[in-house]
């Protein structure tokens, strides 16, 4: 979806190209709303999942006053529709889109916090002359905007903005990419283009050309629930309810099956409601060490549904690498597996797929949950010594330098950073001091020390890693194939409940995510949770080594990059680090 408010009406032409640049995510329909008097154009490419008829055409209007262009799904729209119906609202179609419009007509901006789901939309109130950009509280759907003297433009992908300004001014995004492996909000690759913060709306008054950013919903941690038995029951019921809601669609829905705990739970619950139709999807590898096939098979036996297994091999991986790079909206070191599985889903006729994303962040599935205490201690006691890490040759020692950066920011880069500042400076031919300056100044994160250390880890994974890496990759790589990736573990009720469980209960037990295991022990096969942790293990290291595309890309590279390639070939560099260098080279940022 896109939109422009501007003095300059020839923008209408560019909005078509903005919109077309995102045609992959909305293959089913195209529409524009154009109001020359208001100097406003809204555009949309539609991927239809609920009410597949032309009734769902967008931009949609309501009471000839409200207009909307919208991406996503509202999973409590039926309840809202009923409530609004009792208040006297009439509906002309079966979409959730119309429910958003009626909800706004009734509750104005208070309507936004009533919507539960994954959404990003622009709503135009033609009477009040107010345009609202709105994004869901978990930040599942993206929405970017740019405000300047000539007006406001917005789009759900960064690439759309390249159609507005021919030579967009540059941000030092390469430094962020090398440090984080992605570009963290609010940084983007185009200066002046910002993501709308999750749970916020931007109100733009087109007459006065004034804007106001407001938060309508946010997630915080508290320790309200302490009784383990009640908690287990509630965790299972709240997730079950969410999965059920996420299956609502008039088009075929599938479930990604990684072989892990979270997607296993989602699939097992989904099969209760969708036995006739449920499709599961998985990727596996010939290389036995990396393959989760054994676990996928095990779940599949229990599920008794239509399973689509897809063998990813080296040849296909390397053939598609250039397409994957092209698919990225902003550079990212990950998302490859999502690209393949989404393509596989689409090839099998699915338009929406459920994923277990969010379980690790909410219930403590990452190593950071146990490392936070040590990281904080190191940061507090020896931040100054950490600079000597630079002289060491060990990955962890090098990353320890990041603990000099104050707050959760430094901890994140220590635990999850890709390259250390000296390595970044070397590759990008910058002064190390500049790298430090860029990384320590932005983004600005709140001080979260008040909360329990494990919740600090949860905050970090939810607001940093999941937000900037996982959700962005899932959206971009899904939409490129016209597949909506739905995340039932990030339904509002699940997040609010998980964030209100006392850490002593939430993180108890031997296994990571023990609470999830205990809550679903009745349906989960033991082998799924009682197994060696694989993490994100893919045979990409080996495949990238022999990639002719990569080889060709790195011909004539400078000595620094050459040395890195050499290190990678000798297994001294992880594939995600190397992938970052390949992307930078491909974008012309590395010599």
């Amino acid at each position, binding site marked *: 979806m896109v939109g422009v408010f501007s003095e300059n009406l020839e923008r209408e032409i560019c909005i078509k190209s903005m919109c077309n640049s995102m045609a992959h995510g909305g293959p089913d329909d195209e529409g524009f709303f154009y109001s020359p008097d208001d100097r406003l154009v809204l555009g949309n490419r539609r991927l239809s999942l609920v009410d597949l008829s032309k009734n769902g055409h967008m931009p949609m209007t309501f009471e000839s006053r409200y207009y909307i262009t919208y991406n996503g799904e509202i999973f409590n729209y039926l309840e809202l529709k009923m409530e609004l119906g009792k208040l006297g609202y009439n509906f002309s179609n079966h979409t959730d889109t119309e429910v958003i419009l009626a909800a706004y007509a009734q*509750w104005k901006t208070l309507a936004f916090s009533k919507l539960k789901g994954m959404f990003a939309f622009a709503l135009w109130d033609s009477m009040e002359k107010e345009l609202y950009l709105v994004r869901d509280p978990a930040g599942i759907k993206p929405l970017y905007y740019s405000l300047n003297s000539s007006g406001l433009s917005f789009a759900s992908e960064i690439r759309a903005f390249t159609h507005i300004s021919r030579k967009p001014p540059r941000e030092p995004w390469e430094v962020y990419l090398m440090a984080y492996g992605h570009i963290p909000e609010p940084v983007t690759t185009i200066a002046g283009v910002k993501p709308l913060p999750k749970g916020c709306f931007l109100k733009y008054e087109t007459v006065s050309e004034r804007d106001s950013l407001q*938060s309508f919903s946010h997630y*915080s941690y508290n320790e309200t629930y302490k009784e383990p038995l009640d908690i287990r029951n509630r965790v299972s019921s709240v997730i079950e309810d969410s999965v059920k809601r996420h299956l609502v669609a008039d088009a075929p829905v599938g479930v990604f099956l990684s072989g892990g705990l979270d997607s296993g739970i989602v699939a097992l619950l989904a099969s209760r409601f969708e036995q006739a139709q449920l499709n599961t999807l998985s990727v596996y590898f010939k290389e036995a060490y990396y393959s989760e096939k054994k676990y996928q098979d095990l779940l599949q036996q229990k599920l008794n549904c239509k399973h689509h297994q897809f063998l990813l091999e080296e040849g296909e991986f390397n053939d598609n690498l250039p397409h994957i790079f092209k698919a990225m909206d902003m550079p990212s070191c990950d998302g490859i597996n999502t690209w393949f599985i989404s393509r596989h889903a689409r090839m099998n006729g699915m338009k929406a797929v459920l994923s277990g994303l969010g379980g690790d962040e909410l219930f403590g599935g990452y190593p950071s949950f146990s490392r936070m205490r040590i990281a904080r201690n190191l940061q507090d006691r020896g931040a100054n010594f950490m600079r000597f890490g630079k002289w060491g040759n060990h990955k962890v020692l090098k990353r320890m330098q990041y603990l000099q950066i104050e707050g959760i920011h430094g901890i994140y880069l220590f635990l999850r950073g890709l390259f250390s500042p000296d390595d970044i400076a070397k590759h990008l031919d910058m002064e190390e001091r500049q790298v430090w300056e860029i990384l320590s100044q932005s983004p600005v994160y*709140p001080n979260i020390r008040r909360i329990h250390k494990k919740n600090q880890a949860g905050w970090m994974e939810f607001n940093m890693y999941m937000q900037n890496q996982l959700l962005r990759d899932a959206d971009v790589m899904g939409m490129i194939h016209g597949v909506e990736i739905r995340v039932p573990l990030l339904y509002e009720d699940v997040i609010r409940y998980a964030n*209100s469980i006392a850490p002593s209960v939430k993180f108890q037990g031997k296994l990571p995510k023990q609470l999830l295991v205990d809550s679903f022990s009745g349906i989960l096969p033991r082998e799924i949770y009682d197994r060696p942790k694989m993490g994100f293990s893919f045979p990409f290291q080996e495949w990238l080594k022999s990639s002719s595309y990569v080889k060709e890309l790195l011909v004539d590279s400078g000595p620094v990059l050459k040395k890195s390639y050499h290190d990678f070939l000798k297994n001294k560099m992880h594939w995600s680090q190397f992938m970052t260098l390949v992307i930078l080279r491909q974008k012309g940022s590395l010599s």
Partner: protein
Amino acid sequence: MTKPKKVLFLTLYVFGATGGIEKVCRVAAKALFERTLDERMKVKLMSMHDSQEQGDSNRYFPTESFFAFNKKKLSFIAQAVREGRRSDLVILSHINLLLVGWLIKKISPKTKIILFAHGIEVWIEQSRRRKMMFGCCDHICSVSHFTARVVEEFPRIGKSRSSVLNNCLDPFLPQKTRGIQKEQLRKFYGFSDTDQVMFTLTRLSSRERYKGYDKVLEAMVNLKSKYPNLMYLVAGSYDEKEKKFLDDQIARLGLTNNVKFAGFIPDETLIDHFSMADLYVMPSMKEGFGIVFIEAMFYGLPVIAGNRDGSVDALKNGDLGLLVDPLDVHAIERAIEKVLTNREAHIPNRSLLMESFGFDAYKRKFKLLLDSV
């Protein structure tokens, strides 16, 4: 690039009390939090009396940066001073926090201190020690011009270090649209459709009788003959002594059938109460600002207020409603009659109201103020 600006917001209560000052604290905290989303700014909020749980699940701001001290005054002061020293800007939401501001300024003179001045707490005669401490404030921000005039008399403050930041409407106030329980509520209180209902919402306290409801009762005596359907609903918790005083007055004035007391009404029913009434009247003497006036106007009610306090700001010098001398019963009577004869003409101008007291407007003014200090 510069370091992010560190702001410390110190409060007595944010959630634990229901008065106007707490409303201001919640809204100001939300405005500050929203600046952190878009600007290079970090905000910490400390509350002396609230408990941590009271902040849980609040809609105004995330609680990671909310520190509640649960009435532990010394611990609050120690932490606030420690944190204030590291901050670029400290906002004291109440004059009772002046000591903390003064200590911070002593230790860290470059930290800017802003004090919020509301109403009666600054109008009263201040102790010598406190007068001395006003010097720590780089700026005092009053909720109305009435309060600002008092503040400007403080030693070392004057006009240059004083400004007005009017209170605003809570952005979470529900809109008046479909589904209002107007008829049911009228029936509940025994009012008919044709009754003309005046409404006052305030705490009824024998110790602070300055809200003017007793004067409204007196004004009703003459009006009653001309407007037999005139009714008066007074809502808000009351003490027994005040209730007795009012019951006696009502009986004496022969208004028993025309006046109803609602007692405490929960926030969720406010919209229905405002929607049910025809007129909001509260010729008060000691309002710092009077948030209730702008709330009544938000729901489209004509408003009558006193002209001797901060209410003058809430009614935009009379542009949004009628200002009367709160001691002049005849003036109150005339104002009520004006509204009763032509109610439409006295419905407040919504765009002026939102432009003056909407949350957006508040945020813009608050930002200008903080950036100028």
